[in-house]
């Protein structure tokens, strides 16, 4: 389908242009917010490969983000044999370490599916925060580790927040392109085949164990990169930076973005950031309704808002933002296709 390819390529170009131009029009603080949205986006791309394409659920991706974040912290604070590594170069290493952890989790995951896999991965999410407390010499315990503040390298004349924005979205675009190549090729077909029918996939020569484990590894790599960026942007890591609920937020973002839609995940990433940090704004909007008077500062209100918005979004858009986009553009591509 040539028209589909052009649509996707031009969509990607537009996205890249928008990413490059946006900081001119927004405040430094908004740039920082969008950088964090970009990090969620990266983690969601990985989760989409795992859950959307290979059909394996993970309620533990926050732990892979944490592995990435802690890798960056250890390498840039403790260093290797006394040599501290610049934060920038720790990002790929953090991805690889988290990816290896993902492969490791992928092996037992071969024997499990559905609810059981969800529980096992959730177990990882729950138990991970205990590790830094146990190995507090190395990982900083509950107080955590403090990193150097992020600053633009090579004497680039830009603010730290703008630098984090460009760094995150630059990496996000590269990883988006890589994921796009992966899912539209042989590997992506094999993953989807496994998701849709394991017996037919095996009978077609798809090695189930290899591809399912690979999906876990790739997915955890993405989460690790996201976690590394998150640690750099925050300039500290402790167990609360990667809370258990983060894993749940990621699954929420995936559902909102659309399981199979890579670009739609930006909407999912935006929503999970927005609802975590701006639930009070939503509360004020809701207060416009007659006979309602929520106190935005009251504890519990943000979580409640999160839940209510999530229910409304899923009722209105059961296939996520990606499903809506496909309905809009899908008719466009079919029309192109039947005319040619």
């Amino acid at each position, binding site marked *: 389908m040539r028209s589909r390819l052009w649509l996707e390529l031009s969509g990607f170009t537009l996205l890249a242009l928008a990413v490059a131009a946006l900081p001119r029009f927004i405040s430094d603080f908004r740039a920082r917010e969008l950088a964090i949205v970009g990090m969620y986006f990266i983690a969601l791309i990985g989760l989409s490969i795992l859950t959307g394409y290979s059909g394996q659920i993970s309620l533990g991706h926050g732990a892979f983000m944490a592995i990435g974040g802690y890798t960056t912290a250890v390498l840039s604070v403790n260093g290797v044999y006394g040599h501290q590594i610049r934060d920038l170069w720790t990002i790929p290493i953090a991805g690889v370490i988290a990816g290896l952890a993902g492969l490791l989790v992928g092996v037992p995951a071969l024997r499990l599916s559905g609810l059981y896999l969800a529980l096992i991965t959730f177990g990882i999410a729950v138990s991970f925060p205990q590790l830094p407390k146990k190995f507090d010499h190395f990982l900083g315990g509950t107080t955590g580790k403090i990193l150097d503040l992020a600053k633009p390298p090579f004497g680039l004349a830009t603010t730290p927040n703008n630098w984090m924005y460009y760094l995150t979205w630059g990496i996000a675009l590269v990883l988006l392109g890589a994921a796009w190549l992966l899912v539209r090729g042989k590997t992506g*077909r*094999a993953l989807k085949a496994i998701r*849709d029918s394991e*017996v*037919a996939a095996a009978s077609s020569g*798809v*090695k189930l164990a290899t591809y399912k484990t690979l999906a876990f590894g790739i997915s955890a790599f993405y989460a690790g990169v996201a976690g590394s960026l998150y640690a750099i942007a925050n300039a500290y890591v402790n167990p609360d930076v990667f809370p258990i609920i983060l894993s749940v937020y990621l699954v929420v973002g995936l559902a909102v973005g659309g399981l*199979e839609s890579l670009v739609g995940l930006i909407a999912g990433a935006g929503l999970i950031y927005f609802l975590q940090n701006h639930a009070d704004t939503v509360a004020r909007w809701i207060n416009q309704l007659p006979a309602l008077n929520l106190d935005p500062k009251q504890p519990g209100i943000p979580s409640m808002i999160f839940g209510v918005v999530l229910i409304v979004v899923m009722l209105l858009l059961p296939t996520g933002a990606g499903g809506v986009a496909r309905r809009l553009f899908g008719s466009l591509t079919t029309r192109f296709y039947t005319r040619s």
Partner: protein
Amino acid sequence: MALLALLEVDNVSRRFGGIVALDAVSFTAEAGEIVGLIGPNGAGKTTAFNVITRLYTPDEGDVRFNGETLLETPPSGIIQRGIARTFQNVELFRGMTVLDNVRVGAHARAGEQRPEDVLFYVNLHSVRHRSPLELPYATQKRVELARALASGPQLLLLDEPAGGLSHEEVEQLGKFIKRLRDDFELTILLVEHHMGLVMSVANRVHVLDFGEKIAEGTPSEIQSNPAVIEAYLGAPA
């Protein structure tokens, strides 16, 4: 008797708990043959397919292909050995286009057959960008067939290809299966309930009943075999 059969199912037994799905069953398929495998519901036909394609491991016996055992090959390696199959209840990849379904068929043996060519052959090229879910059941079965052909197999296992077809379509399917055998130089093992189809295309027929092989022969021999008639119609009163 040929020197070497392409496929040899040799004394295969397979039990599920207390149920004996296959009881020391043996049969062969020689290169270029269309072999029918028939029997009432629950006779073990699909179990035999699943043993040949390694989805099940037999409790006893051996399955040989080109003279070498298949039992050391994992399920995903079967297609590399040259065996492709379709499924009784259509196992298509629901979230993929027809073309991508067929491309997965060529996953392990790319270059044997061009997926686009196979789709032309089975007359599905015009729907290649559609989802298989939008197609009628009989057409979905054809997508499965195309997926199996995309690997360029030597042996094709067809599990009830006539499911969901009208009377005229079954006649056409019979001619199509023979043409398929000739054009792709295939050996075909056919599980089918539709007796007319099996009798018109098969060179030889094996009959299973309650996991045991009760008869073997040409279609006309099978039709007059008392044991077969009894299995299908019940014991005479």
